[in-house]
């Protein structure tokens, strides 16, 4: 039992820390916001430091409910890092309007605990608990600007649709439980091993649909653009990064550990969702005027490519999904950090894409960083965004899904169109009114770090990243 608590040490640190921070926030008021944020970052770092499963094999706790394996460790490091970045980025953004409140880091920490449990779930019920903990924190975060009607609308939409998705998921879980007699991943896999009955098939489809909702894969993506647009920009940055990684890792674990024997049944579903996401994410983004909506479609598009890796299954496929998500969050957070700096002369946030016009004239450094993120998201070498795409297509080819790789890669050209449209705005067009000067050295340093990572220098990280992702993927087989 003591060993079980050792395995959940990171989650324990985060939970206890978040509760203490909440008490402090209640007593000290909103002035303590920045200090609490930095303490939150330290808590995330401490949690990452005590992660089991990095140097050793980890293990399972609480009778298989919770798996602390290298797979979970890989996902958690990415999640904690992106949660920390979105925390720090928010501080500077809200800080200007004096509407930054001390609850922000607390909510992010609770979401981080939820995501931790999600990626470590070994049972359909611990999966659900983690997912809800993360979602509840996210609903509140979406409405964080209480006086902004858009923010309230986003929160409500997110809540209603999220609750619907949870319902679908729970229904699927109940079906699976009814037809297999267990909620443990291992037990479900065993029951599916002797052929998939109709009832099990229904359960499987509902579970996948619920999870597809959480990763915003087509056809369960409708909430994404609205929620992304309405939420405060730093919250959107958070939504596009850590929860996406957590939901994707969760989906991978369920698909492989619980539904592994039924791979031929779910592969078609995943392939459909993947191709539909890459096409729709690419086509629908073209007409967008709001940069947050555009990035929402970009996230749908990217999830589609990650799903290609999942469709390939196997160690190579899973490793490629993990690498994809790790590189994706860096690119996305980088792009959002640039968006966070878009403010007009009066200091109000700007969200129109057209405001980026001629940015290369007024802010060459920022423009270069944005161009790097855009080309990288489009997957153009020599930028590092090419590499995860390369890996998922390689995995698909290895799994004898060459046709899938060919179709998916052709759809990536559609996506490339709107990414280079942003570059066109930044570099080719006549300047729009310049943005207000910002003094946020931390944000600038983060943008620089992200840009360097997705620049060709990122290729030197490949051997290391490859080893970590492969090691993590092997833990599932």
């Amino acid at each position, binding site marked *: 039992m003591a060993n079980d608590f050792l395995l959940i040490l990171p989650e324990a640190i985060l939970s206890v820390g978040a509760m203490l921070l909440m008490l402090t926030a209640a007593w000290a008021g909103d002035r303590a916001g920045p200090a609490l944020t930095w303490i939150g970052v330290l808590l995330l770092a401490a949690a990452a430091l005590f992660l089991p499963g990095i140097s050793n094999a980890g293990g399972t706790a609480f009778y298989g409910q919770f798996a602390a394996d290298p797979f979970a460790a890989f996902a958690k490091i990415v999640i904690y890092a992106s949660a920390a970045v979105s925390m720090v980025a928010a501080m500077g953004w809200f800080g200007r309007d004096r509407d930054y409140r001390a609850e922000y880091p607390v909510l992010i920490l609770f979401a981080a605990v939820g995501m931790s449990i999600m990626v470590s779930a070994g049972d359909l019920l611990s999966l659900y608990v983690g997912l809800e903990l993360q979602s509840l924190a996210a609903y509140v975060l979406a409405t964080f600007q209480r006086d902004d009607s858009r923010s309230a609308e986003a929160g409500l939409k997110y809540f209603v649709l999220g609750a619907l998705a949870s319902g679908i998921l729970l229904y699927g879980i109940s079906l699976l439980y009814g037809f297999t007699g267990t909620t443990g991943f291992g037990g479900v896999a065993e029951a599916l091993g002797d052929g998939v009955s109709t009832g099990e098939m229904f359960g499987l489809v509902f579970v996948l649909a619920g999870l597809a909702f959480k990763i915003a894969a087509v056809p369960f993506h409708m909430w994404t653009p609205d929620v992304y647009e309405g939420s405060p920009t730093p919250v959107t940055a958070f939504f596009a990064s850590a929860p996406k990684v957590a939901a994707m890792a969760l989906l991978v674990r369920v698909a492989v550990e619980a539904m592994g024997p039924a791979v031929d049944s779910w592969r078609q579903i995943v392939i459909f969702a993947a191709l539909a996401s890459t096409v729709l994410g690419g086509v629908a983004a073209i007409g967008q005027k709001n940069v947050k909506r555009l990035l929402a479609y970009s996230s749908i598009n990217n999830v589609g490519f990650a799903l290609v890796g999942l469709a390939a299954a196997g160690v190579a496929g899973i490793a490629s999904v993990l690498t994809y998500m790790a590189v994706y969050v860096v690119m996305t957070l980088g792009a959002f950090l640039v968006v966070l700096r878009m403010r007009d002369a009066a200091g109000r946030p700007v969200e129109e894409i057209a405001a980026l016009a001629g940015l290369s004239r007024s802010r060459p450094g920022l423009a270069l960083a944005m161009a790097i993120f855009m080309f990288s998201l489009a997957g*153009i*070498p020599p930028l590092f965004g090419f590499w995860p795409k390369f890996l998922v297509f390689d995995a698909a080819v290895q799994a004898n899904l060459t046709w899938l790789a060919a179709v998916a*890669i052709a759809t*990536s*050209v559609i996506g490339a169109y709107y990414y280079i449209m942003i570059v066109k705005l930044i*570099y*080719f067009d006549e300047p729009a009114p310049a943005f207000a000067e910002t003094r946020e050295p931390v944000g600038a340093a983060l943008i620089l770090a992200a840009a360097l990572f997705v620049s060709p220098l990122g290729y030197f990280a490949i051997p290391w990243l*490859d080893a970590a992702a492969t090691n993590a993927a092997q833990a599932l087989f």
Partner: protein
Amino acid sequence: MENFPILSAILALPLLGALACLTTGANGARWIALFTTLGTLALCIGLWAAYRIGGPQWQFTEYLPVFGRFAWALGIDGIALMLIVLTAFLMPICIAASWTAIEKRVPEFMASFLAMETLMLGVFCAQDLFLFYIFFEAGLIPMYLIIGIWGGKDRIYAAYKFFLYTLLGSVLMLVAMLWMVNHAGTTFIPDLMATDFPPEAQTWLWLAFLASFAVKMPMWPVHTWLPDAHVQAPTAGSVILAGVLLKMGGYGFVRFSLPMFPEASAELVWVIFALSMVAVVYTSLVALVQQDMKKLIAYSSVAHMAFVTIGLFAFNRQGIEGGLIVMLSHGLVSGALFLCVGVVYDRLHSRDIDKYGGLANNMPAYALLFMIFTMAAVGLPGTSGFVGEFLALVGAYEANSWVGAVATTGIILGAAYMLWLYWRIAFGAARTPEAAAMPDLGRRELAILAPIAAAVLWMGVYPESFLAPMRADVESLLARIERAAPEGDARVTAGRPPAADAADAAEGAHH
């Protein structure tokens, strides 16, 4: 000296120059770019001098497995060497041609150009399949910026078209590469060149590579991005597009399609021949009716690149060597023609042929140099154009006499549109007073055009300098594809040497 990584140095130098350009003002960037490209040229000439003809097939090799899945593997053979020298030779000329023509955002322009040089040289140096792909595709980014920022009126449309066309072509190639690497278990190009892929898979792989190289080359009917890109790009951009970027398609055919998929190449050679024959005749006719000088030269590029594809797929020595020489020659000549257009465009800001006329009167030096390049484009003996086109046509005739016959009409049509262009621009009376008042070449312009003219004549008079380094590589390519070579219909037989004829005649007279 033996172990000096000269290829890495050649790739690193322009990249460092690009970074340096970004830190200075307009004039500083110009000088940095000029010295960097001249330095690279010096290194590449050193490379040519140090290249041992008849030595190992791959020289100056470097191998560093730093990227896990693929390696920093560099190495060149004679074909790559010649294209590297061509690239390095054109670069300082491009920089000098942009000296005054580019006025806005000079540091960014020079940085893009230098980055472009690294990427183009990287394509020819890469010995690893994925490294090649990265260099091949990465070139899109700087070229997109060059066309989009410094181009003409419709630059944005042209930049999009260029980017998306080429991207769509090359992504399919990536899937084919992934399949090949999974099949062969290596990413090392020389090993892949010796791998025999199953013939049924070859067809698909060949088509995927064709999708990429045909767009890059460009072959009819996927050539339509080229006239747009050429017309809108700034002069130096057009020179690099025509001079080097188009050669990547041809290089790809020689390096990948032919040696890796010989059976598929032989089986589908009719595709290449059909598309090339259409290109030669159709684009030549289109070139004939153009009013825009740059567009005319752009269409002539498509026609000339069709000679390259016909030659390369002739499956015989003359054809392949001819195709390679046409690539080199076209790189020089079309680059020079775009520079000639740039010279008058800088003065009158019009590419409309009707605005000019009678330039031989007020610009004699210009008219002379323009004449040399026109003749080279036509393929006059003594210029580089003749050598390549003659060899390619001989090869084509051996392979298929119909292809040879149709392709030869391209020479006649080429003479028609080039000579007519020259006549309308240089001879007769000036059609506008502005054209009559244009001053002759300045010293900078002379320094740009004269070296190319010298190279064109050198290649025309003594092509052996350029053929010698490539001979062994053509030999090994032929050895590789000979098992699949389709039988020609011309059945050329060796002629009797004239001496023997004379001896026969003399014998006959005695009897």
